[in-house]
């Protein structure tokens, strides 16, 4: 289905039942319907509550360190000889990535709802760390589910979460990665619904999660809009962000959806190449289905079983994608491209050496696409790239891949 989005009707999705066109919705077992309805009510109420929003703004400013700056990458831009490249520096946030924007928001909501215990799923560990961080600050019990394979791959973040007082539960079922961690977190939630708030880390899950996480992350795009006007004299011509579940991308894109002159590029992980099947690019190579509470594009086999994904970046290693991205793809408002492990690695080194910024491997996918896009555009044009996280956590992965023992 292709529907042209026009400026005459302002974008106002999802509908009241959480649908973005045919995507999104609430696909959960009956026991979760009640807590989800409770959460929907709290979300609709507090997102309009001035006291809640003031507390959120205060925390974003003084705890997270917002607004995050925009950096003009002058040397990189002149090297490429095309469009001027700007970075939204989410890597400078407390805990090192955009994830904390959302966990601060959801934890405040949990507090308002009187929940004493928070749970989360995590892949690379960034969302787990961001959740453990806010739980420590608010004195809440925190349990983080993490695939056993990821626990092994991301030992540093596991230790950070433990330092912060969280319990990290390795998940041994299924493929032992992020999707299985999400299943296990859902099982915990269904068992402990009365005292537990589930802090989902991306724009997936049943409604209201995709809309709620987007709204907490949209601070990225709101700031960027104003900053680009002040700093660069106008809105960018193109936005570029990496897409796993898609929270940093939707956070940047959302405030620009009605600005039809701004092109939007979501960058999925092509892993070892789309043709090899070893990738994490459902929007490029998957088909619509239902998983983790919503309808969206998925990576599945011919029988509808979810298949294992691959990416050098654990944060992009997920077989689904936020339903709003599915809709933005079908409607043609955003374009979804993909970048291989090798291309991301090359971009990682390029940005590190030319601008002195070590990007997360997730964000390196966005950087890599910007490196391709910029030379095709004019020098008077501007690309804004979301630098969603810093690369310190990935140093071991990079060293191992290059045969270096630290």
């Amino acid at each position, binding site marked *: 289905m292709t529907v042209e989005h026009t400026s005459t009707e302002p974008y106002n999705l999802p509908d009241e039942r959480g649908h973005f066109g045919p995507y999104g919705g609430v696909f959960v077992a009956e026991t979760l319907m009640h807590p989800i309805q409770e959460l929907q009510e709290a979300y609709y109420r507090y997102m309009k509550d001035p006291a809640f929003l003031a507390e959120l703004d205060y925390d974003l400013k003084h705890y997270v360190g917002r607004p995050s700056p925009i950096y003009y990458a002058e040397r990189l831009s002149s090297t490429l000889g095309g469009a001027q490249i700007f970075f939204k520096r989410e890597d400078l946030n407390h805990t090192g990535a955009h994830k904390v924007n959302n966990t601060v928001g959801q934890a405040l909501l949990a507090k308002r709802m009187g929940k004493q215990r928070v749970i989360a799923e995590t892949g690379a560990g960034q969302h787990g760390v961001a959740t453990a961080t806010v739980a420590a600050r608010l004195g809440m019990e925190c349990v983080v589910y993490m695939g056993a394979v990821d626990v092994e791959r991301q030992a540093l973040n596991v230790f950070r979460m433990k330092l912060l007082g969280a319990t990290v539960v390795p998940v041994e079922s299924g493929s032992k990665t992020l999707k299985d961690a999400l299943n296990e977190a859902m099982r915990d939630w269904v*068992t402990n619904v009365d005292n537990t708030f589930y802090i989902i880390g991306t724009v997936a899950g049943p409604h209201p999660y995709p809309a709620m996480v987007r709204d907490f992350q949209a601070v990225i795009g709101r700031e960027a809009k104003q900053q680009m006007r002040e700093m660069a004299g106008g809105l960018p011509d193109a936005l570029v962000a990496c897409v796993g579940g898609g929270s940093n991308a939707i956070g940047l894109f959302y405030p620009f959806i009605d600005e039809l002159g701004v092109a939007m590029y979501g960058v999925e992980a092509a892993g070892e190449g789309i043709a090899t099947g070893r990738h994490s690019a459902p929007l490029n190579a998957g088909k619509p*289905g239902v*998983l983790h509470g919503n309808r969206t594009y998925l990576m599945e086999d011919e029988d509808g079983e979810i298949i294992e994904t691959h990416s050098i970046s654990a944060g992009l290693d997920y077989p689904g994608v936020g339903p709003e991205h599915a809709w933005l793809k079908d409607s043609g408002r955003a374009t979804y491209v993909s970048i291989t492990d090798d291309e991301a690695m090359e971009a990682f080194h390029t940005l590190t050496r030319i601008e002195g910024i070590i990007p997360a491997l997730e964000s390196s996918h966005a950087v890599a696409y910007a490196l391709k896009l910029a030379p095709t555009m004019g020098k008077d044009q501007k690309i804004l790239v979301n630098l969603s996280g810093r690369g310190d956590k990935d140093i071991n992965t990079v060293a191992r891949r290059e045969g270096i023992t630290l």
Partner: protein
Amino acid sequence: MSRLTATFRALRQAHRKALIPFITAGDPEPDFTVPAMHAMVEAGADIIELGVPFSDPMADGPVIQKASERALAHRMSLRRVLDMVERFRSTDSETPIVLMGYLNPVECMGYRAFVERAKSAGVDGVLTVDMPPEESSELVSLLEQAGIDPIFLLAPNSTDERIRKMGQLGRGYLYYVSLKGVTGASHLDLSDVERKICEIRALVDLPLGVGFGVKNAEVAAAISKFADAVVVGSALVEKIEFAQGDSGRALDTIVELLKSMRTAMDASS
């Protein structure tokens, strides 16, 4: 009248309660399933819930998760489950079969193709764990046109409004999930379950089955005093797991458990 409705009607006239075993199709291996279905009927099952394995069984505890993994290791799929139903049906035209699983394999096959094939195979009911009534209208109307009963779950925290809605939308029976949690969890409080079943009964006309946490004959008998059907899943699937691939032993132990439940239920009603 659907086979499910007819079954419940006949049981009521005989003052008996329905015993509904659940096994995952293809666990521990595909050749086990159809003979096991017949054996369960002989052991006293009135209706069979056949689990369709899925890679991401979010609402299931470890026992049924592992059963799904064992079945998927044999490349079990929704299509092959439907073939099994057809084989079962060729020699048993009476026992209702309910498919229980997750929505994605059905989405992948396509609602229309699934319903046509389920109809021709002889499926009587479809319970899709992660498809609440709000998202079900398209599939439910196709099922109804085909004369297949859509089965819905009720939970301890379902509101009266939702219970009424499920009573209107559901056919065959309603499946009350006796505790907040995943399949196979423990700590079942029978007096809580009985109280809730009474509340639900005041709001809906459909027969009520109770499942999640039915571990032995004693619990089955206690539930059969106030519910119309007892669903036993994880306790059976655990027997299959303990048999460690010995199909003969798996079959003997599930038959033994079902017979003990049947006897205890009939004695208490």
